[in-house]
């Protein structure tokens, strides 16, 4: 199911083909040495990047730098990059990476440290205003080398910039909630009760649309509940605590949400869950902000105008997801300076707003505060608020996570579909995770 298509975004800009060289004088000075360069970038098939591609022609027009986009389904994109980054000369000048790839790429020394670009007066835009970038995202997606290795801290440094980052929010059907006089759940208890109450009130309708498919998706859904309920995968000494009380509670929450869903919800990925909500099969949807714009798109959604948004409900604390994508320059890229200029431009105030207006996820606080954006997407204010609670330590971003994630996800699927005992299942995950961590040397200093 690879969504591979090469789009020469530059070709879309009518003005470029003939005008780029002639117009070199019109190009602002910082971009002039690079006018006429063609950058190859690797983006995922994702609503934010679809929006970004609509804005790319504007970049070409302003700078004379052409951009060729290779767009792939995001897990396939990661596979492709793994191979690309080990080559001597890479094909990609700029890559988008899933947040958990940060660990692998930085650990293998495959991404450019961005300090030397921000230090270069010829490249760095003095009006960039880095303080306006959403801090939780920058820490989670861009910084590595601080606390626990993957978190920010005094020893951390910047490898990427958030672009298409996301947090989790609760979407709900205003019409259904009004019809039955329901209150939007603020806490986990209320959420879980409501999730199973809705199928009784509206026969045939599921409570809360959630991912649950075996593997990564089930694990992701579990993490959505684990963090607010006060749990975690590891403690500060890397000992697995996924099987503690909070872990069991989170797994039970996931199971009860799936049990109160529609038929076949045990195999949902994020797109299936979103599609089911858009078709009106569910009363609530708890996942990334990235899907919000699609619910208001009349070609695919039957719930246009009936979706309200609220913060991710609170357990023992508020802790919504940090995830999504960032952009970085590979060590083996061939046009690093021009790639930095594109990266800086894409995450600038101007472009961030343009992309957000096309339905992308803002990377900047100022964009969320923009009146024009709030008028077009009324939920922007709620999303901006949700970001305050985004938890940078939402999942361990370490090289062994891929394996632990898959094991956790298959075990959860067994809990959901095969009635495996929750405690027993999670105990198994903890035991196997400890072995994986031990082998990777996380207990060397103990």
């Amino acid at each position, binding site marked *: *199911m690879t969504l591979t298509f090469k789009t020469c975004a530059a070709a879309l800009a009518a003005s470029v083909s003939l005008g780029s060289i002639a117009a070199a004088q019109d190009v602002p000075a910082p971009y002039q040495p690079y006018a006429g360069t063609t950058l190859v970038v690797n983006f995922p098939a994702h609503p934010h990047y679809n929006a970004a591609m609509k804005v790319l022609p504007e970049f070409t027009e302003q700078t004379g730098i052409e951009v060729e986009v290779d767009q792939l389904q995001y*897990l396939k994109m*990661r*596979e492709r990059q*793994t*191979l690309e*980054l*080990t080559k001597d000369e890479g094909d990609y000048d700029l890559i988008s990476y899933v947040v958990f790839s940060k660990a*692998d*790429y930085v*650990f*293998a020394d*495959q991404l450019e440290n961005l300090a030397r670009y921000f230090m270069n007066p010829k490249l760095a835009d003095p009006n960039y205003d880095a303080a306006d970038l959403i801090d939780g995202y920058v820490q989670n997606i861009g910084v590595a080398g601080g606390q626990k290795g993957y978190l920010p801290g005094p020893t951390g440094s910047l490898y990427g910039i958030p672009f298409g980052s996301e947090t989790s929010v609760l979407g709900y059907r205003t019409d259904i909630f009004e019809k039955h006089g329901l209150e939007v759940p603020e806490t986990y208890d209320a959420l879980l009760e409501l999730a199973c109450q809705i199928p009784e009130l509206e026969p045939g309708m599921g409570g809360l649309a959630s991912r649950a*498919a*075996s*593997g*990564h998706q089930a694990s992701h859904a579990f993490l959505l509940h684990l963090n607010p309920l006060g749990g975690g995968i590891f403690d500060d000494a890397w000992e697995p605590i996924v099987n503690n009380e909070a872990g069991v509670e989170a797994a039970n929450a996931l199971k009860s949400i799936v049990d109160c869903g*529609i*038929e*076949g*919800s*045990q*195999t949902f990925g994020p797109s299936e869950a979103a599609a089911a909500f858009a078709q009106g*099969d569910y009363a609530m949807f708890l996942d990334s902000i990235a899907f919000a714009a699609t619910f208001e798109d009349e070609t695919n959604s039957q719930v246009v105008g009936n979706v309200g948004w609220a913060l991710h409900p609170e357990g023992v604390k508020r802790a919504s997801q940090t995830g999504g994508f960032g952009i970085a320059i590979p060590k083996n890229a061939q046009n690093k300076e021009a790639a930095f200029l594109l990266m800086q431009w894409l995450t600038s105030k101007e472009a961030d707003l343009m992309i957000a207006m096309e339905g992308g996820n803002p990377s900047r606080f100022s964009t969320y505060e923009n009146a024009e954006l709030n008028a077009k997407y009324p939920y922007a204010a709620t999303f901006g608020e949700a970001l305050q609670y985004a938890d940078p330590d939402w999942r361990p971003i370490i*090289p062994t996570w*891929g*394996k632990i*994630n*898959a*094991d956790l996800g*298959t*075990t959860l*699927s*067994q809990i*959901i*579909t*095969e009635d*495996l005992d929750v405690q027993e299942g999670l105990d198994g995950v903890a035991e196997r995770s400890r072995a994986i961590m031990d082998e990777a040397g996380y207990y060397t200093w103990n």
Partner: protein
Amino acid sequence: MKTALANRMTPYLFLAPAGIVLVAALLYPIGYMIYASFLDWNPSQRIGEADWVGLRNYVNLLGDAAFRESFGVTIKFAAIVVTLEMVLGVGLALLLDRNLRGMSILRTLFILPMMIAPIVVGLMWRYMYHPTVGIFNRTLENIGLSSVPWLSDGGWAFTSIIIADVWQWTPFIFILSLAALQSLPQSAIEASRIDGASPWQTILYVKLPLMMPVLIVTALLRLIDAFKVLEVILVLTNGGPGLSTEILSLRIARTASEFRELGVAAAMSNFLLILLLVLTVAMYLYGKAAELRAARLRAAAEEAA
């Protein structure tokens, strides 16, 4: 002297291109895989940077419950699909081995499923198995039965992938069996008829034994293929729910891309290779034994005469 040497070397000279191709195209990749299976190698490293870990990957795999389960699923899957496909395929061939009007069109229709790209087969079946809009559940509900969790329950998901595989690959057995049937010596069949054999007896004692060499090779080919099937299951269930449909080739793919352990993936591939080799050798030995037995019987019969 020189001519003699040249004469002796000639055959090798002619064989050399084939030998070189064989070494480059077959032995090198296999050797590479065997070498990789002794490494702790993640895809962000070059192979030269990977650490040598000896037999650790193999030992770990033997102790890995998920791998053992996946191995079990693979063997169960292969055994069931090959048996079903053999029975159905040979049955169909026996049924259609006659001069029917439009037979060539029918035959083409029968082999259509195996001409479709596996990804498409997976997608097609996925939509047919869809819990609410899929044709199966809609039909079941229309005739008043309760719907079936085709892909969302472990047992059913396993059944569902078997159904899809049988649908796709029965035609393969069918066309090979049909070809075998049509090339059987008519004299033997005629002789059996003159001796008064019923159609069933003809099939059981004449046709099937004569087809046996072809059937064994066909079954072997299918078996090897069944152990390696990936795309259809990848699209249908991606191994889930739980590990219920995670066959070995899927686990190998996930180990390489998701877990990023190329060495372990190579070790798994070697286990699969060993399993297939054992099967192939067993089949070969069986064929040899059957041949020897037939020769002995023939010799005994000749002596008696």
